[in-house]
């Protein structure tokens, strides 16, 4: 592999890795608080993309209850992105109240919670299809204004083109990680969240409203899912109601690699998986997912707590 191709694939890996990272952040936030994986995260990711598309004035197709429907507003992408992500965040809160809270109150087994969130994911996908059909929806051509489709990081002789939308996603993911890190480590909200994550019962005795923080965590997590879905949708279109499933699975590999519940781990895990996938040889390029999950298995065997996870100490 010559240097140009290596650099090209390295940048490709960073760009897709940033998508995985931003997706996995939401996963890891919920895990850090409740110790469970929210399988509905991928469905909320999908919803966020639909919300943003609709807020930009996108029309729906000929199938479903809302055939040909169009919201009578045409917001700019940046505004629609924020609003759509907020709406996704609110959906996340509803998911928590419907799928997680009743089971938490009954102290149900973790497996039941996982199954419950899986059920919600399937329900959301089917509701989407019922309302707007299974068509592919694409964001308007001027979503990113007049930016070029790709930017050349090489020379005229040896071009290294990277799609502009991928650069935007990378920049946004870096910004989100920065903001989230600050939020969790340097604000009252973050400290309370960490306290709830460490021990919900004790936090409650110390006056922290644990339920409120669980709801807020779901909101932030789903906001991030909606944001990621919208950004990815703007890059590759919304490929139907099951759009988020593949990302949901990849997100699992990312957070196990990075360390369940670790924010830096989610980011690093995303970039590692993205880079490894980018360097999978062409003949095996359909096996990128297999490579990602092979890494997951190796990590589970060698370091079950992940790169940034802490080893579990059991009192005996």
């Amino acid at each position, binding site marked *: 592999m010559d240097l140009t191709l290596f650099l090209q694939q390295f940048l490709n890996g960073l760009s897709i890795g940033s998508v995985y990272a931003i997706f996995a952040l939401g996963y890891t936030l919920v895990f850090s608080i409740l*110790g469970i994986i929210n399988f509905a995260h991928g469905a909320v990711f999908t919803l966020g993309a639909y919300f943003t598309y609709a807020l930009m004035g996108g029309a729906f197709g000929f199938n479903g209850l809302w055939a040909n429907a169009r919201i009578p507003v045409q917001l700019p992408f940046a505004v629609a992105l924020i609003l759509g992500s907020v709406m996704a965040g609110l959906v996340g809160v509803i998911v928590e109240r419907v799928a997680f809270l009743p089971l938490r109150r009954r102290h149900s087994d973790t497996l039941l919670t996982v199954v419950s969130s899986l059920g919600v994911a399937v329900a959301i996908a089917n509701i989407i299809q019922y309302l707007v059909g299974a068509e592919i929806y694409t964001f308007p051509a001027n979503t990113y204004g007049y930016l070029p489709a*790709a930017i050349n990081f090489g020379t005229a002789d040896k071009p290294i083109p990277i799609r502009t939308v991928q650069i935007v996603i990378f920049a946004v993911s870096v910004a989100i990680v920065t903001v989230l890190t600050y939020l969790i480590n340097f604000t009252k909200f973050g400290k309370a969240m960490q306290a709830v994550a460490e021990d919900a019962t004790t936090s409650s005795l110390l006056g922290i409203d644990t339920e409120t923080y669980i709801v807020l965590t779901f909101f932030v997590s789903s906001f991030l899912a909606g944001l990621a879905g919208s950004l990815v949708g703007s890059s590759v279109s919304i490929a139907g109601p099951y759009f988020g499933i593949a990302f949901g699975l990849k997100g699992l590999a990312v957070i196990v690699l990075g360390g369940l519940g670790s924010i830096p781990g989610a980011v690093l895990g995303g970039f590692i998986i993205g880079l490894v996938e980018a360097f999978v040889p062409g003949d095996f390029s359909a096996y990128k997912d297999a490579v990602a999950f092979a890494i997951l298995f190796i990590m589970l065997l060698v370091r079950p707590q992940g790169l940034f996870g802490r080893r579990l100490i059991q009192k005996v």
Partner: protein
Amino acid sequence: MKKPPARPTALFVTCALLLIACSQTNTPQTSTTVSAGTSPSPATSSEGSAAGNSSAIPVGVGVAQTSNVALLGQEQVAGAKIAQKYFNDKGGVDGTPIRLVFQDTGGDEQGTINAFNTLINQDKVVGIVGPTLSQQAFSADPIADRAKVPVIAPSNTAKGIPQIGDYVARVSAPVAVVAPNAVKAALKQNPNIKKVAVFFAQNDAFSKSETETFQTTVKDMGLELATVQKFLTTDTDFQSQATNAINVNPDLIIISGLAADGGNLIKQLRELGYKGAIIGGNGLNTSNVFPVCKALCDGVLIAQAYSPEYENEVNKAFREAYRAQFKKEPPQFSAQAFTGVQVFVESLKALNAQSKVSEKPLAELRTNLNQQLLRGKYDTPLGEISFTHEGEINQKEFYVARIKMEADGNNGKFEFLK
């Protein structure tokens, strides 16, 4: 923050693997476009023997109305419904209307088996149009064959479909017949094509079957197969594969995939600077690809088994009905589903001319219907078709279309090459 206990972690991984198994995308075995009009109404069972005790003759439609294959199934539902209205308006089977009974197969094999069983045993249909995918057909068609229920495959183009059994026929021309036309058209446009890069969806039986045909055609024409890149139908990011392909400087790229993945691949190839010719396989033969790659779809060549512009009475009526309802040209998937229903209706009419179908026991009617449909010749939206004794379609008309996008990139159409 909390750390993962080992057991839940293992559990989550297990769940993930189960999900992977569940989420493998089966892919369509033909081309298509968007949408049917409305969601199909749920099936209602018809009592007793086929046409016997009910006022309408029940014909089953078992296609994917949910799952990631729904995009294709919806188009088939649209075509079938237009056929139902068209033929019933013309008097149905000598005054007896047909009634389509829809069962959703979902996107997997088990769902298809369930749907077929319901259509056969509960809804007591005389025949079935379906399923959407070849993978599904290989699982469910043997059930219909054993029950001696005729099946017309509207979109299964993989090798071996008619050979599943005596009761299985198809109105979807096999890919080996259709695909090479596109390569010939590309060479006609640019005789200097030498190097070819091929992309195909590794997780889709049809795409694998199609790419074999394309690769054989490329070699047979003396062209250099410079690289073969694989992807999954669930993929959205193709930058690494596109980079690998562009790196070998191909003159032509051939893609066997579906609308979403194939459209994204086209988009990313063009954005990364590829300027050569592109051929899309059957899975990209749908207007659903337009919104994905927008203006960048322009110029893509696609071989077709259906042209909306085909001049005959039934296609004119079908095209008008489709355009009135959906405001766009009908896709191949809808046309093939329409054709499937048409074959059943015309075969029933031919049988009825010999002896009243309403008086036949269901089992006998199904067997007679299967024999009759293989004997007949049909003037359909696909052109004149008939079947071999195995149930393979004999079709004369094939086309190559070039995607022509409007300047703003929002709308496009298939321009059929002469």
